[in-house]
């Protein structure tokens, strides 16, 4: 049987298979923390931006983590933080999270606020992906247990 145009990767008999090659690639990091003295904007990744994607792939970015005041903070104040996904240094998608006052230091619970973001790049291409938090009223918010998963999918 001859080869037929347009059926590449569709006929094992004619073209074989791409054995052992996953159809997606993934990258991930975890930063347990807590990391304090969060300045504006503060990267939540352990080693800075992650290079991901490529000419044939879009990037799905998934993030989970928590924000809170340190339990030893003497005078915390409510803060509306912005957590955003940055591509090549530019903010592309963000959410806001309200971090309440932590109560009496070393007595009350620290009131962690969990957050999650799920976002995909609009077009195929390689990018440096970063996740940053911007506190609203102070640089003393802390973040913890940040997990970032990147899935590069072929377009």
């Amino acid at each position: 049987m001859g080869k037929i145009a347009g059926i590449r990767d569709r006929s094992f008999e004619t073209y074989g298979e791409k054995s052992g090659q996953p159809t997606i690639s993934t990258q991930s990091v975890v930063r347990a923390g807590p990391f304090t003295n969060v300045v504006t904007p503060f990267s939540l990744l352990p080693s800075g931006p992650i290079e991901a994607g490529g000419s044939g792939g879009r990037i799905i970015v998934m993030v989970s983590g928590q924000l809170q005041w340190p339990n030893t903070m003497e005078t915390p104040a409510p803060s509306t933080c912005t957590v955003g996904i940055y591509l090549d240094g530019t903010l592309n998608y963000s959410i806001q999270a309200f971090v309440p006052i932590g109560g009496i230091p070393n007595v009350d619970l620290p009131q962690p606020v969990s957050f999650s973001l799920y976002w995909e790049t609009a077009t195929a291409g390689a990018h440096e992906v970063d996740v940053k938090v911007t506190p609203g009223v102070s640089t003393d918010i802390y973040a913890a247990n940040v997990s970032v998963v990147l899935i590069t999918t072929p377009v």
Partner: protein
Amino acid sequence: MKIAGLKGRSPETYPSPRANGLVTTNSEVNTNPVALTMTQANLFGAGSFGAVPGDKVIIAYSGVISAVSGSILVDVSVVLDNAVTLYTLQLEVKAATVPLPFSLVFETPVLDDTLDPHAITVVASTESGTATVAANGSVIIIIIPS
């Protein structure tokens, strides 16, 4: 005769998807409440999700936690082989009858060959003894062979 365009659609000609090299998914929903104490409780009953050495696994979970009374801290974790806590997210349930929705995502490193298969579970426990309840858990498992 094999016909172009029917790959993966004709069981007679192409009996099954090939596991090697293909991403697979698994999922589970548990609408039943799970009582939480200071001992880790599996949010999906006795069940676990399997993966073999060489796989990486992405776990995406969403659910709700509420407290029977008072304010309480809850740790939700991804656990490997019922022994190794890979990732933990800490939540605070503010008060009784105030449900707290949350979600988490985590990717395991490439699983080694110390066990075959490995078991992955999502568990939760409280930081104090106050009874708390988790419910409406939904988990998606994406298994990526390396």
